[in-house]
């Protein structure tokens, strides 16, 4: 049997910087460096051990200030695809140890407006007051129309995720709960059907990961976590065109289920299926996105997602615990990319048995995701404790 493409790759370090609504005295560079210092400490490695950097705009500065050149460098946005890029570089021998990092601070200062990264500039949407909540609302509304999905089902997702953040000491909104679905529905309307508490919040912070070879991982302090599968689905640029559920080409594969085909490829690579997933570190920009993802990834049939998230199935102790740190609704949401890496970091933490909120006992397989149908893309990744 052919060897798994990521057989020789392991995630050996994860770290968060401080996370807060506003981090006084920091900018994006300094907070990213804080996460880098912490991930080096977590992994037991030093800058001299790093021969690859995947950190978006910070790749150049990190390489220069660490003086670790000549170094491999990724040019991708720091989210799930950059981790796959780093793993591919290691698997193909272009480098052996990659630092992945991203951070954001001091960017969202004009609070009367929505966050700058949520506002599109494209000529066909700019004059109509669009921002991410409205984009994702147009997706959710279509699903509600087709399948009768209810605001109460959306609110159940939001309450579940926010309650995970409520008990996570590192979450920006730690202690802000607990929430019932009625609390979510009682919060002010932002973009119908999304109430304020159905939506991601905004905050500042950074995070980082280190990937290395399976062989090197044996000498390092942490239990290695392996990449069992990963892929991405894109339907075009985010926030420039109408975010239609039924956007599709001749293949008939539609934007409403973006991530479905990436999940199928990931499960095939991992030789696993949805029933094998112990923890669902799904990206949660808006409550409906969790319902959509359970359908897209094949955990339930199209139209069944609303019922699927009820009755405690996605909460702590449920069959498919979701977004166990509070996600972008409660843990942190640092901007365009950094919070997407958080899903992978939490997946690794769950598999180490080290998540301080909603730890799943003996978690062996974690599914992580980024993006969403309102943004016309979804990336997924499967992590595991066993070498693939």
């Amino acid at each position: 049997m052919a060897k798994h493409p990521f057989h020789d790759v392991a995630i050996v370090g994860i770290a968060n910087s401080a996370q807060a609504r506003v981090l006084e005295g920091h900018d994006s560079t300094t907070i990213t460096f804080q996460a880098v210092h912490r991930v080096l400490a977590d992994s037991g490695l030093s800058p001299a051990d790093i021969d690859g950097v995947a950190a978006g705009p910070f790749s150049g500065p990190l390489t220069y200030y660490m003086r670790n050149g000549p170094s491999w460098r990724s040019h991708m946005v720091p989210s799930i695809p950059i981790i796959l890029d780093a793993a591919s570089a290691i698997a193909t021998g272009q480098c052996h140890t990659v630092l992945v990092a991203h951070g954001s601070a001091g960017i969202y200062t004009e609070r009367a407006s929505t966050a700058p990264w949520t506002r599109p500039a494209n000529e066909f949407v700019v004059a109509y007051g669009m921002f991410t909540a409205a984009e994702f609302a147009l997706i959710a509304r279509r699903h509600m129309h087709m399948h009768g999905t209810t605001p109460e089902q959306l609110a159940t997702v939001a309450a579940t995720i926010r309650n995970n953040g409520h008990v996570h000491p590192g979450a920006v909104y730690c202690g802000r709960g607990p929430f019932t679905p009625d609390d979510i529905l009682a919060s002010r309307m932002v973009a119908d059907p999304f109430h304020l508490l159905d939506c991601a919040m905004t905050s500042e912070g950074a995070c980082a990961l280190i990937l290395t070879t399976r062989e090197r991982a044996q000498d390092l302090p942490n239990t290695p976590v392996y990449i069992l599968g990963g892929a991405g689905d894109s339907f075009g640029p985010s926030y420039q065109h109408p975010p239609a559920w039924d956007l599709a080409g001749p293949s008939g594969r539609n934007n409403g289920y973006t991530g479905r085909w990436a999940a199928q490829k990931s499960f095939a690579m991992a030789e696993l299926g949805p029933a094998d997933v112990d923890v669902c570190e799904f990206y949660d920009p808006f409550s409906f996105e969790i319902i959509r993802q359970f359908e897209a990834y094949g955990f339930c049939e199209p139209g069944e997602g609303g019922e699927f998230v009820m009755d405690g199935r996605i909460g702590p102790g449920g069959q498919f615990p979701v977004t166990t740190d509070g996600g972008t609704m409660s843990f942190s949401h640092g901007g365009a990319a950094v919070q997407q890496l958080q899903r992978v970091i939490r997946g690794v933490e769950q598999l180490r048995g080290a998540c301080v909120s909603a730890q799943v006992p003996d978690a062996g397989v974690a599914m992580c995701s980024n993006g969403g149908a309102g943004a016309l893309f979804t990336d997924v990744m499967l992590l595991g404790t066993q070498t693939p």
Partner: protein
Amino acid sequence: MSELLQPQSLGIPMPVPTLFSQPYWDGCKVGELRYQRCGDCGAVTMDPAPACSACFSANLFWEVSAGQGEVYSWTTVWRPQTPAFTVPYAAVIVTLDEGFWLLSNLINCPVDAVHVGMRVKTAFVELSEEITLPYFEPAG
């Protein structure tokens, strides 16, 4: 009856036409909703594009829509994108009868009357010398 949705006024961020979208914005100025059709396969393409979204041919020509369609999806927005926008406003994706989607705002409609499948027609609002925006309003 709830309040009527209104168009926005000058001060909101404005579209910047490109080389291949300029005919669309020129059409709006004269009250025409223009869209592209493929000279090779006959398919409709929208938003304005440099190639056909069905066969990728560059052989596109402009036609004028009857401006009639129905609401495909909608959201009423209560937290404005920026303070330049007056709330509430309703963002809609409209399926035009010629078979393309357009993202716009609904006006002249009670806030609580918006629904999927609602019949709508274009309502052009001149915001500046360069830009007239296509909005939609209830039809009939």
